[in-house]
């Protein structure tokens, strides 16, 4: 009798343990905390599009470990309040997430991911923001100083007559820091930096700003402000007789559709730097460009459109190469495995080029300087 009772208790315990083990999910859900409504909804749309595109390609090729991947859009509406509550909801069960976007929501929501030990890829911000949340995110870009100083120096070296430069700077997030890095690069060449001209975020008239800049008699001008503001400043410059268009350099964050729609032909000849090169030729990137154009009235993919595309592939690699199972019981351990993998991945196959990560920072991503012609970018040089 005792033996039977013992057997029954053991069987009950075994069944209860087995019953408690939740099965692995049937698909890989990746929530994407993104600003799909509000002031930067147009940017949120193409970030989302890139992630969805990667998921579609992966699913067409058989998914991740045979299971489909699904991007779950979570709209934070550029609102830190909503972003933090959504992140608090996600960290319970989510293996890995994308976003948040942009900086104010990152600052409000990422501490929650860090506390919970959940990786969330903030692929649209600079290292200066991302590194505060290491190792639970990775940076998509090296440090602002390291990448921008040589870039702007390479631009200035094209012109022997570049003796003094003025910058238009808008006080938003990392942009003043980017302007400082531009200045450092130019100072290294012995070029004099003139007093910067601050561009108010809500500026509606740009004439006085341009007059102020021109009064300093610059040989070249760098723009670190919103795309539409940069376009309007260039229009004002041209209307006041500025001829040396290639002596104008726009920073990467200005490379967005509203730059070209606002600036039109007045931008022709100006130069712009960025981290993606539309002229790179490979089947994945060609297919991406075609699909993007089809979905967006023939437009070229904007600068950030590939970031979350690559991020989804990086997650796929992390899951496949580290043996992540997705079992809820292993959540904590597998989150760490994904974070560790991404922080130091070597030879990651991005859509345009391969790159390595060291401690969460990319080490060998190239940058590009282009000339704008007919609202298209024509490569001038690659800077490493």
């Amino acid at each position, binding site marked *: 009798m005792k033996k039977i009772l013992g057997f029954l208790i053991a069987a009950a315990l075994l069944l209860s343990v087995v019953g408690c083990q939740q099965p692995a999910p049937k698909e890989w859900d990746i929530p994407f905390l993104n600003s*799909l*409504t*509000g002031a930067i909804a147009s940017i949120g749309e193409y970030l989302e599009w890139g992630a969805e595109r990667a998921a579609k390609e992966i699913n067409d090729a058989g998914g991740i470990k045979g299971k489909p991947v699904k991007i*779950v*859009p*979570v*709209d934070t*509406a*550029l*609102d*830190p*309040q*909503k972003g*933090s*509550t*959504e992140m*608090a*909801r996600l*960290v*319970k069960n989510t293996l890995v997430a994308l976003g948040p976007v942009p*900086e*104010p929501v990152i*600052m*409000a929501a990422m*501490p*929650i991911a860090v*506390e*919970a030990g959940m990786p969330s890829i903030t692929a649209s911000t600079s290292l*200066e*923001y991302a590194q*505060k949340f290491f190792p639970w995110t990775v940076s998509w870009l090296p440090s602002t100083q390291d990448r921008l100083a040589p870039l702007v120096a390479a631009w200035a070296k094209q012109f022997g007559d570049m003796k003094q430069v003025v910058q238009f700077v808008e*006080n*938003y*997030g*990392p*942009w*003043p*820091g980017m302007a400082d890095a531009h200045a450092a690069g130019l100072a290294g060449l012995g070029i004099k930096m003139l007093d910067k001209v601050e561009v108010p975020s809500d500026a509606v008239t740009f004439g006085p700003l341009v007059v102020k800049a021109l009064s300093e008699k610059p040989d070249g001008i760098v723009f670190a402000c919103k795309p539409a503001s940069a376009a309007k400043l260039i229009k004002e410059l041209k209307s006041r007789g500025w001829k040396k268009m290639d002596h104008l350099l726009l920073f990467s964050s200005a490379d967005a559709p509203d730059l070209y729609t606002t600036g039109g032909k007045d931008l022709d000849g100006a130069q712009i730097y960025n981290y993606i090169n539309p002229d790179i030729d490979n089947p994945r990137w060609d297919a991406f460009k075609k699909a993007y154009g089809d979905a967006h009235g023939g437009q070229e993919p904007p600068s950030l459109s590939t970031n979350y595309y690559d991020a989804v592939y990086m997650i796929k690699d992390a899951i496949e190469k580290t043996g992540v199972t997705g079992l809820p019981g292993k959540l904590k351990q597998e989150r760490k495995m994904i974070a560790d993998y991404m922080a130091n991945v070597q030879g990651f196959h991005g859509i345009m080029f391969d790159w390595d990560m060291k401690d969460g920072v990319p080490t060998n991503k190239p940058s590009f300087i282009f000339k704008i012609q007919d609202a298209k970018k024509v490569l001038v040089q690659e800077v490493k």
Partner: protein
Amino acid sequence: MPLELYYFLSITAVNILLSWALYLPYRVAHLHFITVANMAISGYAAAWLVMSLHVPFGWALLAGFVLGGLIGWLVSLFIGDAPTFAVVIVGFTFIFIARTVIENTPAVGGSMGIFGLPNIGGSPETHRATIMAILAAMLLLVGFLLHRFEHSRLGRAASAIFVDKDLAASLGVDIRGLGRLLQTVSCTIAGGTGVLYGFIYKSFHLDFFTFGLVGIAMTIIFVGGYSTPWGTVVLAPILYGVPLLFPPAIQEWRIVIYGAALVLVLVLKPEGFVTRRFVVSVESFLSGATRKKR
């Protein structure tokens, strides 16, 4: 407490306190948006005290209250009895000034913001418990003071000013004095609330204190009901909580739904959902029920 519940409750509490801070001077027809600027100034100042001078959080919070009150009092010396429009302009101007000063002050992170505020009490759990306890205490205290104010001579004087300043003056109401008092108390509440707001996120960014925050508070007050503090208590959790329950397909229509609700309420029920008459009838009902029990 589940993490999402903590964020829901703490942010709702902040929204109620901010709305009350706006509601209070609105009792004398002052839309005092300087409260949002004060949240930012006190919040950043407290964060700087904690991060750079290693001042304990309690003292930094106290400094936030004092700084908010001081700014509110100084400004009230000039606009204590100003017309509504002038107070609105001063408030907006102050938000611009505060933003410009902060984004050009490297000591508080400039346009990048302040990261990595420490956990109060050393651990995340203690941090959350402390924040919740302080917010709950503030809600009770401010709610109690508002309740007392509504039933006091000052409250009746404020109602008179709201309806007609000249009439109130002819009744002997000190319009300027009452305006100053309400503006100062409002800014004191806002100062402390700003400190707690940033410490919930453990970071400060200028975009935490935008006109969007003014919009949230205005919607809470005017849809909830601007003639009693209870409208704020009812609407703050609804306005913030219900959208979180929307399915993703409806999420993107959230702003349209807000806008439509606001327009409908302003057209159909201009005093908002919770009116003074409703509150009085509830109070009469409750006191009647109490008397019957006796």
